């Protein structure tokens, strides 16, 4: 399982990559494994305002429906439209081509409360016991 070290992680198994005033958001390798084959992604529209913790979209696998929760506060700048045609990119490349939204962050300092790769890995190990 992958835990890229340049990302921050949430307890809902999402990641965020900081890119200046923007944040790129997706779901973790663990999340895509748990969900199984993803068949549908609902992406919010550009311009939508998100508060950290808000539900901002949905990921559906064959058997389950899962809400996506905003790791940070900001405004949706771009959604990954290729996921609409090929949702399985989320399974294949969850940290790269599988990014879900790009958000203009209100306050990048908010992210310091999120977990780093090591903490997320430890969190997973705890969850599994």
């Amino acid at each position, binding site marked *: 399982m992958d835990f890229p070290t340049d990302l921050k992680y949430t307890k809902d198994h999402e990641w965020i990559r900081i890119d200046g005033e923007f944040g790129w958001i997706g779901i973790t390798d663990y999340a895509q494994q748990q969900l*199984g*084959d993803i*068949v*549908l992604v609902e992406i919010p529209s550009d311009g939508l305002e998100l508060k950290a913790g808000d539900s901002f979209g*949905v990921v*559906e696998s*064959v*058997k389950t*429906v899962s809400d996506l929760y905003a790791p940070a506060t900001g405004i949706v700048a771009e959604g990954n439209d290729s996921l*609409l*045609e090929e949702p*399985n990119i989320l*399974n294949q490349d969850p940290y790269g081509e599988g990014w879900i939204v790009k958000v203009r962050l209100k306050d990048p300092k908010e992210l310091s409360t999120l977990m780093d790769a090591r903490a997320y890995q430890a969190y997973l190990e705890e969850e599994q016991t």
Partner: protein
Amino acid sequence: MKKTILYNNHVTLGARMVAFAGWMMPIQYKTGILEEHRMVRERLGIFDVSHMGEIEVKGPDTLQFLDHLVPSPVMRMQDGSAQYSFLCAEDGGVIDDIILYRRAHDRALICVNASNVSVDWEWMQSKARPFQVTLQNRSDDYALLAVQGPLARSLLIEKVFQDPTLAAIKRFHFLPFFWKGAELLVARTGYTGEDGFELFCPPALAPELWERIVDQGAWPVGLGARDSLRLEAGLPLYGHELDRDHSPVESDLSRFVDWDKVEYIGRERLLADRASGGKERLIAFVLQEPGIPRIHYPIGVGEAVVGEVRSGGFSPLLAQDGCGGIGLGFVEKDLARIGLDIWVEIRKKRVGATICEKFLLKK
């Protein structure tokens, strides 16, 4: 929690096991549901469905008993033929859907759903009393392997069993077959919409038979893909499209009823529903916009809710332009019209859909 004889095979393959009808069953293997689904459509897959039940009926009144018990044309069966049917209650609601296998005029095997074995057993016993038959619950005597897909038949006949007599088995027919000193039933039946066989097998032999078939190229497939395959083929699942509240007419299965038969359990309701159309009718539908229908999502026409989804999911075969949602559901009977535009409510949004013929695959 019960385990089939093949439990260890599944675990060794890295299957994700889940509890289903009191059994630990593989929902998928490492390949995943979609790939397993495609494998069956394109090549072949093997399923462990040993959790299903088998009830044997023996005695001179076997056919008469079954003819009374079910609405289907039992008397048209011959030795070696199989028939899809239902156990109906007196009120015409469905207790279970089953497959009858006529072994001889005085011997038949009934394959029933895992979730209903006890109920079916009690029901059949209570109805058998006036007939000269003995019943036996032989569920523990049979493991069941389903081998399904375009390559299933040639693999089994030429590579696994290497016996050309099996080539004569027609659809919905079966033969007893001796293998490694034990009797198997090799049945050309299935639940995926593809050609294939179901192999009733003594549990002691099942691991070897499973390994042999997998070695020859069959892909292990779990219950997740089994469900998406049967949905894509438009096949009903008990508890979803069939239940105690709906008659087989309402579940759109009239073609399995022998309308000329003058006596059987549930006949009154079946005739009434055929005449009136019943209250609700099962429909198949495809979404015209992105979305996945799921059980209990409302179905509507115009401003009104007119029914609900009973099974829904994603169809790899039908998916295009980001739309791949298909489903089965009940609507008010007058609205069960092919081509009618409906909507399915998904997370408070109405997603457009169209009523259609049951998907694909008249194979």
